[in-house]
């Protein structure tokens, strides 16, 4: 039975107003970005915020830019905004190939990059790329700003380091990660939009290999222990040592482990 209740909708027009609003509603407020997770959760009775705080309405929320610091994305930057941004396509192909695997075109029109990581689903498609590219989360609250690398951002299933009253103001992908190449393999039930049964990204920069794995543990996983000297089997073993998949309606633990191994071997074999 879909739940029903009334909530207040707030749309702060500046960062200062937003931080004040978040502070005031630290316990009963929920941030609305694309809404592709929040709205279904409200409909299905999984979340029941008293205040829905729209993060898209302040100036600069949807800003995406590239400069000396790298790629910067505000909290309202949608997946398709990212895919349309030439600097992102040219310099961060890995980020874009993961973005392209996320849901369907229609959902990518709404869903935001920030929302995909704040939601902290184990099957986040953006997280593997952000992990492998050393991206950072710029978090802001009334108390100021702190910068957290994504490698420390996720703390559990649907859990992050974000504190009540705090929001993800920007995602920073460092300039040093520009030009990193890689490939994301995502196992799905249909060819169209689907949540991954498992997803494995491998990136390569100056001979350094990294793996980002989704749908394989309580959080998205970064594996940076594999080297180009490893055989595909050794690489697969290292990746598998870092994950702990479960059995669910999409697949068994056994098959997930098998496929993570297959993907890791396949990806490494391609670059060796």
């Amino acid at each position: 039975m879909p739940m029903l209740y009334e909530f207040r909708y707030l749309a702060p027009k500046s960062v200062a107003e937003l931080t004040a609003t978040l502070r005031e509603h630290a316990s009963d407020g929920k941030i609305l970005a694309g809404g592709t997770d929040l709205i279904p959760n409200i409909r299905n009775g999984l979340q029941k915020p008293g205040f829905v705080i729209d993060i898209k309405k302040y100036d600069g929320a949807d800003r995406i830019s590239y400069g000396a610091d790298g790629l910067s994305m505000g909290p309202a930057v949608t997946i398709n905004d990212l895919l349309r941004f030439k600097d992102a396509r040219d310099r961060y192909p890995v980020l874009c190939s993961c973005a392209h695997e996320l849901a369907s075109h229609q959902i990518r029109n709404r869903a935001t990059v920030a929302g995909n990581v704040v939601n902290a689903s184990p099957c986040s498609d953006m997280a593997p790329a952000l992990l492998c590219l050393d991206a950072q989360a710029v978090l802001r609250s009334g108390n100021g700003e702190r910068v957290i690398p994504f490698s420390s951002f996720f703390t559990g299933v649907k859990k992050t380091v974000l504190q009540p009253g705090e929001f993800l103001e920007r995602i920073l992908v460092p300039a040093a990660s520009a030009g990193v190449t890689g490939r994301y393999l995502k196992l799905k039930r249909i060819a169209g939009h689907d949540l991954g049964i498992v997803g494995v990204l491998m990136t390569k920069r100056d001979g350094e290999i990294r793996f980002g794995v989704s749908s394989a543990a309580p959080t998205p996983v970064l594996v940076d222990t594999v080297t180009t000297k490893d055989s595909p089997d050794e690489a697969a073993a290292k990746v598998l040592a870092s994950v702990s998949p479960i059995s669910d309606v999409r697949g068994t633990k056994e098959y997930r482990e098998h496929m993570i191994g297959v993907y890791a071997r396949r990806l490494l074999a391609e670059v060796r």
Partner: protein
Amino acid sequence: MFDDIKTGDLTWVGHETGRADLIEKLTGEATFVSDMELPGMLHTQLKKSPYARARIKGIDVSKAESMPGVRAIVTGDELDYHIGLYIVDKYILAKGEVRHYGEAVAAVAAETLEQARAAAEAIVVDYEPLPPVLHHMEALKPDAPLVHPDLGSYSYVEAVFSPKAGTNIANHMKVRKGDVEKAFAESEYIVEREYSCPSVQHVPMETHVAIAQWGKGDRVTIWTSAQSPFTVRNLFCHAFKLPHSNVRVQVPYVGGGFGGKAGIGIEPLCAVLSRKAGGKPVKFQASREEEFSLLPCRSALTYRIKTGVSAEGKIMAQHMSMYWDAGAYADYAVNVTRASGYSAAGPYEIPNAWVDAYTIYTNKPYGTAYRGFGHVEFHWAVERHMELVANAIGIDPVEFRLKNALKPGSRTLTGEEILPSTGNVVKCIEEAARRIRYGSITPEEEARQKKTGWKIGKGIAALHKAPAIPSFTATAVVLKMNEDGSVLVNLALTDYGQGTYTSVRQIIAERLGFPIDKIKVAFESDTDRDPYDWQTVASKGLVLSGNAAILAADDLLEKAYAVAAEALHANPRDLANDGDKVYIKHHPDKSVRFAAMAVGLALPNGNGIGGPLIGVGRYIAQGLTNLNKETGEGRPALDWTYGAHGIVAEVNEETGEYRVLKIASIFDVGRAINPDLVRGQAIGGMMQGLGTAVCEGYIYDENGRLLNPSFTDNKIPTAKDLPLEVECAVVETPQIDGPYGARGVAEQSMISVAPALGNAIQKATGAQLTHMPMRSEDVWRTLQNKEPIDNWITKSPVGSCRSAPEARRRDE
């Protein structure tokens, strides 16, 4: 109704014409019940069971009743109406006991949807959970809980069905042909295997929706997204003991049904709410989640087949046991069982056959008609079995099929003789094989295998299906001529996307000799206005309504010619028409326009003759009989549509992933009235079949809770899943009693897609798949000789993306 005229000599029949509903569908002008709003209309929300089986100890509606906007609340206690077409086993709302997860126990009608939702949430139901029986094979055990302890007292169609009181068996259908024991003893090889498939959902784009208004003097008007307005009216009147003249059912455009809207559904619920709300119209539209668990699905099947084969590869004997999972109610499943029972061997001759087909109650959402009416499910078994038998005895599977295919002179399981005009499954198989270059790997395919490392395999599967209908199924078509000489067509067969109205229009234009744009088929069906049609199901629409249309056109012309004969002082036999006027064949200059006669002809002196021109055509299924309950003997089939699919697939042996590179679908449609529509049906059905082959299926936990009641985890294919290459073609062996020789093809396109894919995967890798769907993990497990997942009733489900326990509360 077959005139042996070559398609080239016909003007409209056999040619491509635009769909009759093209503009309004493309522009969004077509009005569906989902779109409809009536003055004062109330909205409905339901309280549903979180248990698969529980005693209802009490329902407290006191808080909900006093909430804003609430106009009516009903619970099962106050309703004493049983509903059903074949076996009358269902209440409008659960009464005393809930029998499946998601079953409705109370309903609220309120001024807004939000108010109805809030009130439904405020209803408190006190349950005593009872142990459910979930797997249909468990339900057969002697100590299994009974889903319907009162089965023995239910009314049912006694000439056709055999429920077993005191068990969970809602129907037992038998076929006994020849001497099976002796033939097995004489067989060179005996192969026995078991196959299965889970429940799946129809997924119409428009979910179930109805509006009902219970007016003064018990006059009830219903607007509904349904396939069969007259069946809705008939069953409604039986349930409420109302005269048929009191009830009017209207069906506007319908956004898909696939069998899920075949009988009666949510209409009685809307009606009792309207009655309690003082006659205000009440609307209920199911959510997508409710489509999966409140409304019916397709039954699961376990099918065991044992086959005896001679040294020469001829089938000598076959023993077939079908176990159909009806779920909590068996109204349609009993007839799915019957139709599947008499077709159980597929399009093959089985000289000695033994079929036991059971419909079994379980505590799960209930099964109903679904495109193919059982044939998709059991052909999965039969056509995988034919492959496995052929492998076991060392014959090529296609050769084995051709050797045993039904041919003129063969006898079906029920003893019906196949005639040269019955259709030609051999040609279908051969054509499918030719189009995929069966039995060889082309140089391009060889190169592709080398490049990808994926193995290519090719598989064929054949099929047959006859309409599963009562032996006396009837329909009628009425043609009314408008003042300008154009024609309005009324019929209560509904066109919910399949395109039948377009074909009927072509048939009428052809028969009348009129330009096609002079023929309009009224899209909305209305039991107060349209002539009777039983139901829009079973791929029988074109055959029965097409014949009725021919007769109606002939009748209209006869009446017009009678007037013209009088006006022109001619013998009607000497008259012909050019679409605009009737003229004397040997004096073409002497004529009278249809427009002048349409509503009555005024003679030069002012006298009127004739009157409004109306043509009536009635048609009833010919020559069908009830089947002998002990042997199955009789004539159940109006016509048989044969077909075959050929699939080229490539498989990754390491992962179990696969892709369909090509599919060729061939059907003996007798005559393609509209080749474009045949192609539309062929591709649509093929994709639906592919969806159930690749990934669809209901997954329950051990308490009978549906774990995937939405598109998050009950995926259906999208355009991206289309095979790289799709070919459709027809074989045309005219059906002598079909309109212009035509047969139905709406369901056949979905049948045997899955086994063709399974056969191709086996050819590529050796994987002996026996359970549908074939997820990549299933293929991988089979290749690894690992236990199948069989997670359809699962012990340990935890969602990786929503494994937090609070995240799994949806739908309670």
